[in-house]
């Protein structure tokens, strides 16, 4: 265990919804095959940001370049899974996202890996902010029976009846709410459960209410949703509320058309947000406590479609943080056309559950087997093993 960690290690998961084009993020800029297959979306080699002789970042990732050069970004190449349902199902946003969320490519399941992890951290459900989701709706990754997860749209407007403008009225309404939801003796089970759920909502809101006030920062985040969400993560984390898992997502990566307009905007927002986030954590002396896991449901097709790219496979994942040993992990998917999955897709080279297992075992010190549903070979992106031995 590294000594600099004041609080237990925390995992921040960022989902890039829509399917980030891995080939255009970590670009094999020397490959004629890729250039030929992508006349529309290929980034000119001279504009890319080389990270070795073969690979380069998309220019919009520039804000992260420094972090990468400093060895804080681990790129996991070719993340995916063995397709079970054929391209039709495994290339569906819904299904692919579910697979990442539930770790079950072979069957449909409703229990999320982070839901299970939350239960591991807080088996008695004593702390409703053990896991906090920033965004509307609970991702299935965080769902598990009996597990309470707090889902926050915006930290500054969190809680019940937030539409009521008059603070005084709202306070009284919340008071009434609390008493209406106080379980009465002898009520039916479902009513008691509802009452407890109502009270736990109030409790989370109370716990989180102070976090924004305690927070002060020199870092000026951008106005993008992902930047604001990551700022909220720092506000909650530094408030010391015992949160161990944070989740948020950035939308818009489904670049079937107009990819050259859309992708740079998204990557810039993401890179700036992460850069600012790490800086903010450093300023709060907390950067050693946090690992970011960035994933996307799938990569995109090798050939472009004249305007953008369609759903594919073989994406990438990223681990970022001051505790991370940066660099390239896994193997870049083969670009040789004879290796293309279905004749048009990158084949995955590392099962995504290997990445989860690595983070669970080496970063969080949790046995991954039950959570990811099996034993998967791990990679080694941490300076020292943490939480073991």
């Amino acid at each position, binding site marked *: 265990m590294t000594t600099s960690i004041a609080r237990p290690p925390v995992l921040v998961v960022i989902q890039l919804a829509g399917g980030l084009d891995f080939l255009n993020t970590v670009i094999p800029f020397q490959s004629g095959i890729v250039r030929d*297959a992508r006349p529309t979306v290929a980034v000119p080699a001279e504009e890319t940001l080389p990270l070795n002789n073969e690979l380069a970042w998309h220019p919009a990732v520039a804000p992260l370049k420094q972090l990468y050069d400093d060895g804080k970004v681990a790129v996991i190449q070719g993340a995916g899974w063995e397709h079970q349902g054929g391209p039709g199902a495994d290339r569906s946003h819904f299904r692919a996202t579910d697979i990442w969320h539930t770790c079950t490519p072979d069957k449909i399941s409703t229990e999320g890996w982070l839901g299970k992890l939350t239960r591991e951290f807080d088996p008695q459900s004593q702390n409703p902010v053990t896991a906090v989701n920033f965004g509307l709706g609970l991702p299935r990754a965080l769902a598990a029976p009996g597990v309470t997860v707090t889902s926050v749209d915006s930290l500054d407007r969190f809680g019940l009846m937030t539409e009521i403008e008059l603070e005084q009225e709202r306070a009284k309404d919340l008071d009434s709410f609390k008493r209406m939801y106080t379980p009465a003796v002898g009520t039916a089970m479902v009513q008691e459960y509802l009452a407890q759920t109502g009270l736990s909502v109030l409790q989370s809101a109370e716990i989180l209410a102070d976090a924004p006030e305690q927070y002060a920062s020199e870092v000026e985040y951008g106005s993008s949703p992902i930047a604001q969400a990551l700022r909220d993560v720092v506000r909650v984390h530094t408030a010391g509320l015992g949160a161990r898992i944070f989740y948020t997502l950035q939308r818009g990566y489904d670049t079937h058309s107009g990819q050259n307009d859309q992708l740079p905007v998204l990557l810039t*927002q993401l890179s700036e947000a992460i850069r600012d986030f790490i800086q903010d954590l450093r300023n709060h002396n907390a950067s050693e406590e946090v690992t970011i896991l960035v994933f996307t449901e799938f990569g995109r097709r090798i050939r472009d*479609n004249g305007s953008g790219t369609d759903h594919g496979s073989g994406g990438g994942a990223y681990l970022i943080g001051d505790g991370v040993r940066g660099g390239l992990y896994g193997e870049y998917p083969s670009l040789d056309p004879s290796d293309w999955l279905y004749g048009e897709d990158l084949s995955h080279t590392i099962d995504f559950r290997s990445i989860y297992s690595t983070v669970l075992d080496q970063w969080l010190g949790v046995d991954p087997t039950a959570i990811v549903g099996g034993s998967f070979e791990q990679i080694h992106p941490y300076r020292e093993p943490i939480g073991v031995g």
Partner: protein
Amino acid sequence: MAVETNGANEASANGTYEILLRAGYPYEQTLGRRLVTFNPIDLAVGKEGRIYCLGRGPFETGGPLRILNWEDEDLGVVRRRPAEPNDRPAEADCGWIWPAGIVCDEDERIIVSDEADHTITIATRERDEEIARWGEHGSAPGQLDRPAHMAIDDEGRLLVVDTMNHRVQRFTMDGRYIDGFGSYGSGFGELDMPWGIALDGDGCVYVGDWRNDRVQKFSPSGEPLMIIGSSGDGDGELNRPAGVAVDQHGDIYVADRGNNRVLLFNREGRYVEKFLGDATLSPSALKMLMEQPILLRQRDLTVLEEEKRLRSPASVRIDGDRLLIPDFGYNRVQVYRKEAYPLREDQVAPIPTRPALR
């Protein structure tokens, strides 16, 4: 031949021809594909072969206002405001909410109506955002309630179909109200949630009287002149007709949306023929398919009969002798080209007194 027909066309614009020798109306080409010309609700042809194809997404997501050319190249999009990242397909959101109609003026300014916020936006292709927007919600003269299709008269003024007020209103381009006509009902000259509009060479106004299943022709001052079509799915019958257009010969085209077809009536309102759709692969569709081995296989296993048909067309537009149909449900534009020769009176026998089988 070319010289002859050109001369005849000129004559026809003045309405001086007797009858039209209809040689045919062959299908010419298909433009666009899914995700590029997404749910095209209307289109306008600009200069130098630019085609502005207006997409209508679900709910508040607007759609792409895509610029294409006759070679089916994607020339980018026009925006009402800069795009914000969201969970919609990239570029699907050009800033409109429920875009309904588009026209281009002589300077190639693009005018778009929006049924959700009851506004008319004026934009250009060069800028990434609107240059003007006007429109006030309401039912008083000059106010709008769900503006749909538009047309520009010969004085450069904008006629707007004001759907929920069941009328047509005329404005200057900067939004000053001039006049209008129409009221709710199903009688002659009355309208029920009208949608499409077109002008002929004489300035007469044709309105797609959507909920009355007909098109009505009005004089330039708004007097009702003629009813075209009636409810049904037979020849010359309409099921919730949307857009209308009139060509140089006075032929009237109706997007018979509920029947998935376009009908052609002659200038007297007599039914002539229908277009059911003959789509082939557009250059962009072909390119997309050629790059996707799975799709090629899937396609080989399917029955393709249906795919060439029109699906819920909401508009029909004329550009010279071209007929353009934004094929809403199939995310593409189908193009036909007219072959017809106007004949002078001295070339044609007199109208027979009775129909005969000889």
